[in-house]
């Protein structure tokens, strides 16, 4: 299919009006399909196996840990009085927060007409779905008797009992399950035209059958595109309030309680900003190696990395503001318990958690003010890992430091995770990377039809398409 040139001729833009292009080297439509499809059609690269084998092993570790925990009970974790929420809730919030960047890119940036999103949205949405799957494991296991998880849903039972909807934990059930369902559907709807492309390129019967089945008979008809684009716009419009509500409701799990450090109205916006911050950290961690491994430098350009660093910086500044504001509120509240909690957070026995949080989330992202740093892939990659670590410590500070020194000093106790906590957490990385590696090997990792749509030759009025440069 490559009888056509891989590059198109784009006439020079008048001086002063140049913008850094979204697709480098004036790539043609055909080049974009060929380049992206090569990841699934070419031979399995060695690095893929090198990443897949350890991921599968870690996934096995997750299975073993969950089996052990279900058989023995939640006592195998470090949770104990007064720290009844430990690594399980930290990791639940951490994983679900990571998912938020995917929805921000796919929905909010779509509504804001940020055309650069097309290069990264498919992979980021996949990241969202897999991260929510990892997150979902924790509350399901945390209830202790996993076999009663279905009591969380309003299903008529022999007991005639219903869930108690005044509890934020029930709100969480609805928020997280809706978030997972809608993210999956949004991702799938976006995939339909690209699955049709895979079907039309497929050389084997099996591929033709499976890509064809999931492409639903898509032909690229404009009568279809018209309804499709409207549905996509509505899904973006629905996902935007959804993503804002999910982490708000997660924060209400804390904020509706009466605990110092948790009972605060700043939590919903602060959690949402933190979630987007951590999610962009993970997007950068994933895409910086992938763009060079899969030779996608012309599609995920330095401009894309640069903009994502700026979003990380902006959300990092919002969480920094919240961290400082929490102290000011504690001082201004006049509540002895609040004041004690925040003094204990910074100067108590777990001061190191607070220092890690402040260092990684408040200080490190400030480096993104410098263009030299935003354009240095190695540095950005390292900084993105700091963001991931910092956001883990933020949840550690909220959950564990919020609990281990509660109202009665006689109840105080230090918290330590067990080996099961640590191995379960490592295991969720196995689940995440196994799914992500399978995704990138079998599905188009870049939203091909959307990237084609943002090239200069896609605009019928652009000189590159033969247009006269004017308007209708």
């Amino acid at each position, binding site marked *: 299919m490559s009888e056509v040139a891989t590059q198109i001729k784009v006439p020079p833009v008048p001086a002063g009006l140049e913008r850094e292009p979204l697709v480098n080297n004036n790539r043609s439509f055909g080049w974009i399909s060929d380049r992206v499809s090569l990841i699934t059609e070419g031979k399995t690269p060695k690095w893929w196996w090198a990443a897949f084998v350890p991921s599968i092993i870690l996934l096995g570790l997750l299975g073993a840990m969950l089996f052990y925990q279900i058989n023995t009970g939640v006592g195998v974790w470090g949770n104990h009085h007064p720290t009844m929420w430990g690594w399980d809730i930290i990791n639940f919030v951490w994983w679900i927060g990571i998912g938020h960047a995917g929805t921000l890119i796919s929905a909010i940036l779509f509504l804001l007409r940020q055309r650069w999103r097309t290069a990264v949205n498919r992979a980021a949405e996949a990241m969202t779905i897999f991260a929510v799957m990892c997150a979902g494991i924790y509350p399901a296991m945390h209830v202790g008797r996993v076999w009663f998880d279905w009591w969380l849903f309003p299903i008529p039972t022999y007991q005639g009992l219903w869930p108690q909807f005044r509890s934020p934990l029930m709100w969480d059930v609805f928020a997280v399950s809706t978030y997972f369902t809608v993210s999956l559907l949004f991702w799938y709807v976006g995939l339909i035209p690209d699955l049709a*492309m895979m079907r*039309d*390129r497929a050389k084997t019967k099996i591929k033709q059958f499976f890509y064809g089945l999931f492409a639903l008979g898509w*032909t690229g008809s*404009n009568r279809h*595109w018209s309804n499709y684009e409207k549905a996509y716009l509505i899904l973006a419009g*629905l996902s935007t309030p959804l993503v804002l509500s999910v982490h708000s409701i997660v924060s209400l799990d804390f904020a509706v309680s009466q605990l110092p450090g948790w009972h605060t109205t700043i939590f919903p916006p602060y959690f949402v900003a933190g979630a987007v911050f951590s999610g962009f950290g993970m997007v950068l961690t994933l895409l910086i190696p992938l763009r060079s491994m899969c030779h996608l430098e012309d599609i995920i350009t330095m401009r894309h990395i640069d903009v994502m660093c700026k979003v990380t910086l902006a959300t990092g500044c919002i969480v920094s503001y919240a961290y400082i504001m929490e102290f000011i509120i504690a001082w201004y509240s006049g509540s002895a318990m609040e004041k004690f909690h925040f003094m204990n957070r910074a100067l108590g026995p777990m001061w190191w958690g607070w220092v890690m949080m402040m260092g990684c989330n408040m200080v490190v992202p400030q480096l993104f003010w410098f263009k030299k740093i935003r354009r240095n892939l190695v540095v950005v990659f390292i900084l993105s890992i700091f963001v991931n670590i910092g956001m883990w410590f933020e949840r550690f500070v909220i959950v564990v430091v919020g609990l281990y020194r509660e109202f009665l000093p006689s109840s105080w106790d230090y918290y330590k995770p067990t080996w099961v906590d640590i191995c379960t957490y490592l295991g969720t990385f196995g689940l995440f990377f196994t799914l992500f590696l399978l995704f990138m090997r079998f599905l188009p990792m870049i939203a*091909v039809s959307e990237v084609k749509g943002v090239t200069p030759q896609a605009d019928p009025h652009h000189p590159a398409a033969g247009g006269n440069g004017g308007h209708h």
Partner: protein
Amino acid sequence: MSANAKPYGLIAEFDTTTSVLHAAEKVRDAGFRKWDVFMPFPIHGMDKAMGLKNSKVGWFSFLGGVTGYATGMLMIWWMNAVDYQIIVGGKPMFSPHGAFPPSYELTILFGAFGAIGGMLFLNRLPKLHHPLLKHKRFALATHDKFFVVIETADPKYSETETRKLLEAAGSKRIELVEE
């Protein structure tokens, strides 16, 4: 497949978005009804060039959203205030505030079902078969080419006249597709 296959329509290939957009305007102005443009990505302005009305998907989504919100509120009211009352912290049996978060999520969930279901229904998808998918060149409709197809079922269709129109619109490759 019978030996004397019926023709489905004429397919005309175009290389650029500009040429296919202008061709669509010509076909629209000639008054055809059963015709379509096929392309690897949506071209801005094509709906207008084809004379299409605004998509009706929004209504399906709106109905879904209303259903979701009503389901949430009624379900929570009936479960916690009517069918099995549990007193928690002296709070009222039903309050719209406590019931709002799950109802809000159900609004979005059913709204999304409405949008996707409506899109598939209006597009008559999924479809297991389409005459164009058997046409060799048509595989490029998801790659880098643009196609205008006028069906034989259109009352204005005539093999010679329609072919002339498509030629005049600038297509260099026009073929007959079989049913």
